[in-house]
C-alpha cells in the first residue's frame, strides 16, 4: 500500500516535462516535491503562474498567496494576472493537467469533491472550472473511506463537481484509468494484489 507521499510521488510521474499544471489542496500539494528534473510550471488559480515554495519566516507577503490562501513565494519565471484571465487559461484548455483530491469518483469519470448534503457547505471554489477545462484530470485519494467503503463507485452518490471529467485515479492501492465501460487497472501499489484492488473497488473493472 502507498502512503500519502508515495501517492504524490506516483502522481508526479503523470506530469509531462514543459507543461503548466494545477495542484489541488492536500496530497496533490505534495506532488510538487517529486517533479525531479522535469520543467513544470505550477498555476495558482487566484492569479499566478510559476508558484514557488512557502517563504522563510519573516519573508511572508500579504499580497502573495496561493489558492489555499497560504503565503508563498515567486520564481524567476512567475507571471501574475487577474482571476478572469486565470480561469480563461483554465477554461481555454491551456493547463495540461490538474491533480486533485476527491470524496467519490465513478467509473464514468464523474467526480464529487465539493459538497456533502446536510453538512456545512463551503463552496466549490475553482474546482468545477478546473475539471471542466484542463487537459487531463488526475484524482489522488484513499481508495476507501474511514468506514472501509469504496470511494471508487459505479456512480457517485454525492453532488457532482464534474460529469465524466476524470482521466486517471491514483489511490493508496493502485492506479486506474477511466475507459469505455468502466475502469482499467494500470498498476497496483507495492504489496497490493490485483484481487485486493478489485475487492476494494465498487466500480466495474474491465
Amino acid at each position, binding site marked *: 500500500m502507498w502512503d500519502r507521499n508515495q501517492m504524490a510521488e506516483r502522481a508526479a510521474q503523470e506530469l509531462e516535462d514543459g507543461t503548466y499544471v494545477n495542484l489541488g489542496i492536500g496530497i496533490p500539494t505534495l506532488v510538487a516535491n517529486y517533479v525531479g528534473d522535469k520543467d513544470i510550471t505550477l498555476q*495558482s*488559480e*487566484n*492569479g*499566478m503562474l510559476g508558484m514557488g*515554495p*512557502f*517563504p*522563510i*519566516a519573516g*519573508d*511572508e*507577503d*500579504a*499580497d*502573495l*498567496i*496561493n489558492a*489555499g*490562501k*497560504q*503565503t*508563498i513565494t*515567486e520564481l524567476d519565471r512567475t507571471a*501574475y*494576472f*487577474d*482571476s*478572469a484571465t*486565470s*480561469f*480563461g487559461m*483554465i*477554461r481555454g484548455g491551456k493547463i495540461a493537467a490538474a491533480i486533485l483530491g476527491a470524496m467519490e469518483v465513478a467509473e464514468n469519470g*464523474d467526480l464529487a469533491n465539493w459538497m456533502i448534503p446536510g453538512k*456545512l*457547505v*463551503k*463552496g*466549490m*471554489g*475553482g*474546482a*468545477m*472550472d478546473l475539471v*471542466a*477545462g484542463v487537459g487531463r484530470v488526475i484524482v489522488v485519494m484513499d481508495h476507501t473511506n474511514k468506514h472501509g467503503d469504496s470511494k471508487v463507485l459505479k456512480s457517485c452518490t454525492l*453532488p*457532482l*463537481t*464534474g*460529469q*465524466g471529467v476524470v482521466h486517471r485515479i491514483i489511490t493508496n492501492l493502485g492506479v486506474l484509468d477511466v475507459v469505455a465501460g468502466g475502469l482499467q487497472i494500470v498498476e497496483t501499489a507495492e504489496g497490493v494484489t490485483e484481487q485486493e484492488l478489485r475487492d476494494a473497488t465498487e466500480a466495474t473493472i474491465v
Partner: protein
Amino acid sequence: MKKIYPNAAAALDGLLHDGMFIASGGFGLCGIPELLLSAIKDAGTKDLTFASNNAGVDDFGIGILLQTKQVKKMISSYVGENAEFMRQYLSGELELEFNPQGTLAERMRAGGCGIPGFYTKTGVGTVIAEGKEHKDFKGETYIMEEGIFADLAIVKAWKADETGNLIFRRTARNFNPPAAMCGKVCVVEVEEIVPTGSLDPDHIHLPGIYVHRLIQGDHEKRIEQRTVREA
C-alpha cells in the same frame, strides 16, 4: 476629471443606497478593499447584495458587514472561513448563490464588457446547471451564465496615478480588475497615488477609464494563513 477624494466616506458619498448590488475585488483577505468596506459599515447601508469570491472572516473583509447584518445576499465561490456567515445562512437570514470561481470572474468581466451572457462547460451535469439554458457547440454541451452588472464596484489596487490608471501587486490583483469593470461606478482604494506621468503606460494593469473615484490610505493587509518553511 477630478477623481481623488480625501477618504473612503467621501469617495462613497451619494453612491450608497439600501438594497444595492456591489461587486468587490479580493481573494480571501488578499487585495480586499478594506477601507471602503469599513466605510460602508459606518454608512449603515442595508440589504446589500455582494458579488465577491469570498465573504471575509468574522472581523475583517465583508465579515464586518455580516456582523452588522447589512448583507442580504452573497454571490461567492467559497465561504469557508466565516462562522457568522454560516450562522446567518443556516438560520435563513442570508441568501447565498454559489458560483464556480471562474464563472464568477467571467460574469464580472462579461458584464463590464457589455456581454449579457456567455456559454461555459463549467458546471454542466451539476447543481450549478439546474434551470440554466443548455446549448451544444460542436458536440459538447455548455450552459449559459449571465454577465454581472453591479451598481457599484469597490476595488483595491497598489498604485494609481491621478487619472485612475491602476497597478496591482502580485496575487492581490485577483478579482479586482473584473470587479472594477462590472460596476456602473467604480471606487478604488490604493496604497499610493503617484503623479500622472510617473507610471509607464505599458505597465498599466487597468486603465483609468474604469475608475471613477480614488482614495489613498493605510492598509492592514491581514494574512489569513501564514505558512513558512525552514530556512
